[in-house]
């Protein structure tokens, strides 16, 4: 038998011992063989001069079991004396008997105190553990709630996208940039829906895996305890003198072609590709929409459409006291408004309504709901101010091509050229005259007081 074989057999025979103790013992016997070989023996002779590994293990385990048995009856800290009564007698351990009895009493008291502390600690720990468990469950439920919110946001984005598609077909007025912005909105919303759906799936998967990991961890922990118990139970007969059983090494199954295949680096998963494409689409849609809206009125128009623009005073003025409506342009609105309606209602109130192509529909301001068949839509915020006793509408006039003035049941349609800059004077009696600029064509649209 070679040195290696001897030590391997010894190692397997001492399998019931702890790793450190077993390694120390194997190292000791390895050293004994080396010393014998240094003393002139061959390797085989050195190994043969020792006991068989099974006998060594049986002897060691027997002594160990005996020591443990003795330590149960006497002082564990004095294992040597306890395992060798002869030594106790010869080294005068009669003198140590009294202190040992004291130690036993002290140990009994210590154990009682320790037991009491364990009980108290358990009483205190139970509510803490229950609270911690409840907190963990609540946190887990919250995480699932967040996941459901992600799913809901995905559905909302899909709905927004569908709404955008409908608006594309339903909008009576839509310029090119507006259409581009709308399409960008649709694409962005759908891409965000995909992103949210992927996040929902990924987050949900993580939550499920979290539970699986926890369960596996608990199983592993329980399995390890069980194995420790089994090992302790299995070590008992060995400690009583029986040699440790040597288990034959099991041959490994041959490698399959799949095992022999070199590990290849896996590419990005499908969901990852979807996520990347969606993120790119979201960014692209954002900048495309932003650019398109900038061409038709800038970000302020977006704000206007979102209904978050500045609030303007309502143009409900007494027609008898206001004779001139000065329509001057505000560059910021030049691309937004392309027609404004001015009317005087039966209660002598002047109403102004504007519409914008960017709004994808009719837009009107003031509480007037019927001005030349104005449709519903988002409120258009027009800057109004009173200047020298006149109400001034600061709107682009260059794009105005139609102006309606109405009093009571009558109204006058004023056709304004694209490049017209001037004022329209209303005398409060329904008569309209051009105040400045080039002449405009007026046309009665109904009633008796057409200009």
């Amino acid at each position, binding site marked *: 038998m070679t040195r290696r074989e001897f030590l391997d057999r010894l190692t397997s025979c001492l399998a019931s011992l702890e790793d450190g103790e077993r390694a120390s013992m194997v190292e000791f016997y390895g*050293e004994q063989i080396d010393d014998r070989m240094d003393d002139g023996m061959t390797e085989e002779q050195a190994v043969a001069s020792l006991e068989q590994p099974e006998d060594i293990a049986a*002897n060691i385990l027997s002594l160990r079991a005996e020591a443990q048995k003795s330590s149960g009856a006497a002082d564990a800290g004095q294992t*040597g004396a306890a395992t*060798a009564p002869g030594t106790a007698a010869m080294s*005068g351990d009669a003198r140590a008997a009294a202190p040992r009895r004291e130690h036993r009493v002290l140990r009994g008291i210590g154990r009682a105190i320790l037991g009491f502390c364990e009980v108290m600690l358990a009483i205190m720990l139970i509510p803490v553990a229950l609270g911690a468990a409840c907190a963990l469950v609540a946190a887990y439920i919250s995480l699932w709630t967040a996941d459901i919110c992600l799913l809901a946001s995905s559905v909302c984005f899909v709905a927004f996208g569908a709404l955008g598609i409908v608006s594309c077909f339903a909008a009576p007025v839509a310029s090119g940039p507006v259409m581009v912005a709308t399409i960008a909105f649709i694409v962005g919303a759908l891409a965000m829906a995909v992103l949210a759906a992927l996040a929902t799936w990924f987050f949900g998967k993580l939550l499920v895996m979290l539970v699986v990991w926890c369960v596996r961890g608990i199983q592993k922990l329980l399995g390890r305890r069980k194995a420790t118990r089994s090992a302790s139970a299995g070590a008992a007969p060995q400690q009583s003198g029986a040699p440790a059983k040597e288990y034959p090494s099991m041959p490994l199954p041959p490698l399959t072609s799949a095992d022999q295949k070199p590990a290849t680096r896996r590419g990005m998963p499908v969901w990852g590709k979807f996520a990347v494409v969606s993120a790119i689409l979201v960014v692209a849609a954002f900048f495309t929409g932003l650019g398109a809206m900038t061409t038709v009125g800038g970000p302020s128009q977006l704000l206007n459409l979102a209904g978050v623009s500045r609030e303007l005073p309502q143009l409900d003025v007494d027609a008898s006291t206001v004779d001139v409506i000065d329509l001057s342009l505000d560059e910021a609105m030049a691309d937004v408004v392309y027609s404004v309606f001015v009317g005087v209602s039966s209660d002598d109130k002047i109403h102004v309504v504007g519409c914008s192509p960017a709004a994808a529909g009719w837009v009107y301001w003031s509480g007037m709901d019927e001005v030349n068949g104005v449709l519903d839509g988002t409120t258009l915020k027009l800057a109004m101010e009173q200047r020298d006793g006149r109400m001034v509408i600061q709107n682009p006039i260059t794009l105005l091509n139609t102006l309606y003035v109405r009093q009571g049941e009558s109204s006058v349609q004023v056709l304004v050229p694209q490049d017209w800059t001037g004022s329209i004077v209303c005398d409060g009696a329904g008569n309209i005259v051009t105040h400045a600029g080039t002449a405009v064509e007026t046309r009665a649209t109904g009633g008796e007081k057409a200009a």
Partner: protein
Amino acid sequence: MDAQLKKGVLDACVLAAISKRDSYGYQIVKDVSGCVDVSESTLYPILKRLEAAGALKTYSIEHNGRLRKYYRITDEGIRRLNDFSDSWDEMVRIHDYIEEARHDQA
């Protein structure tokens, strides 16, 4: 010799073996085997026990390209050895008593 009695004296024998000079496992076996038959499987637990009790301490020295563990007796070990020697009178009395009883029986 009775196994229990042998165990008792082996501690003292091992301590005596390393009290002359620091020694290593194989040398201790050879030294102690001069008076009491001892094997490595008996020696190892004794060394461990004495080390745990502070009666000896270990150190390693490189020897032929490997580390060899040496054992050195401590003050506690010397005290134990002295205790064993001091109890010799008691041992003699026990021996005489046993011999006397044996002769009476004969």
